[in-house]
């Protein structure tokens, strides 16, 4: 692969630079794990306090959209992993298409999420704006939906950042890609997969509880 510039003086070699970038990305991901970890801790505490209410809230989420979005995100991650794997000047065109495809799936996720938010607004399930829920479970259900909106909105923000990264890299990779670009793509891919992993757990916590009871 052609080198667009030499590596910085603090590195002994190109693999050293790439390894450092990867470790730095994992440190960043650790901070992100703790960001979402705080939210999940709040979920654990309140679900323990209001188990029936959280199950009732969960039954009011759109499991079809949630499941479709999970499949969309897993496929998007697959396309990015594929692009990282085959990255070379000879495959620049295919890599670009894979990244654009992954970004489009990311956008599809955001659109579906928006439709879901709209449905929840119509059902008066948005705390702080319009929340009405009949019966004694109203308070617990409201706590569930506060978690739901904060967690999914922060996740969607991460998605938007990831989509911008993928589009930027798709544009860059169209031109002569270097090992530096491969490293950048690898870092962005780690971030994208991490956002995917967060969704895997949000999906299990938000959509699945309470489905077998009524």
């Amino acid at each position, binding site marked *: 692969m052609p080198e667009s510039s030499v590596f910085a003086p603090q590195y002994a070699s190109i693999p050293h630079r790439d*390894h450092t970038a*990867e*470790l730095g990305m*994992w*440190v960043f*991901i*650790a*901070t*992100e*794990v*703790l960001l979402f*970890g*705080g939210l*999940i*801790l709040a979920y*654990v*505490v309140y679900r*323990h*306090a209001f188990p029936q209410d959280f199950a009732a809230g969960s039954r009011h989420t759109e*499991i079809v959209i949630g*499941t479709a979005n*999970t*499949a969309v995100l*897993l*496929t998007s*991650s*697959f396309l*990015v*992993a*594929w692009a*990282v*794997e*085959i990255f*070379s000047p*000879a*495959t620049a065109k*295919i890599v670009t298409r894979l990244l654009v495809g992954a970004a489009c799936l990311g956008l599809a996720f955001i659109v579906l999420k928006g439709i879901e938010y709209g449905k929840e607004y119509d059902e008066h399930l948005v705390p702080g704006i319009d929340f009405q829920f009949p019966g004694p479970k109203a308070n617990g259900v409201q706590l569930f939906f506060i978690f739901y909106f904060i967690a999914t909105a922060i996740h969607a923000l991460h998605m938007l950042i990831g989509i911008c990264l993928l589009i930027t890299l798709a544009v860059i990779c169209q031109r002569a890609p270097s090992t530096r670009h491969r490293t950048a793509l690898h870092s962005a*891919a*780690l971030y994208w*997969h*991490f956002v*995917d*992993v967060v969704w*895997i*757990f949000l*999906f*299990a916590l938000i*959509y*699945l*509880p309470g*489905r*077998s*009871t009524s």
Partner: protein
Amino acid sequence: MTEWRPPIALVGAWLGLLALLALTVALAYVPLGAGNGVVALTIGTIKAGLVAAIFMELRHRGGLTLVFAGAGLFWLGILLWLGSMDFLTRT
């Protein structure tokens, strides 16, 4: 011209993840009592493990990278453990 093809491990992981998604949704509708939550989180953990090992390439990485990747989980464990202990043990 096979250099553009995805490795079989990636395709396998992708199909496996979609299968696990179908499985977890199906099992959510089977009444298992408290087992439903355990099943959902176990399958979620397996899915996350597949993504980390294959998509994030951790299966090809050495000890140092694994320590950096595991650090987040270590601190998450402390956060969830110490954070929830009081609430889960109150009578």
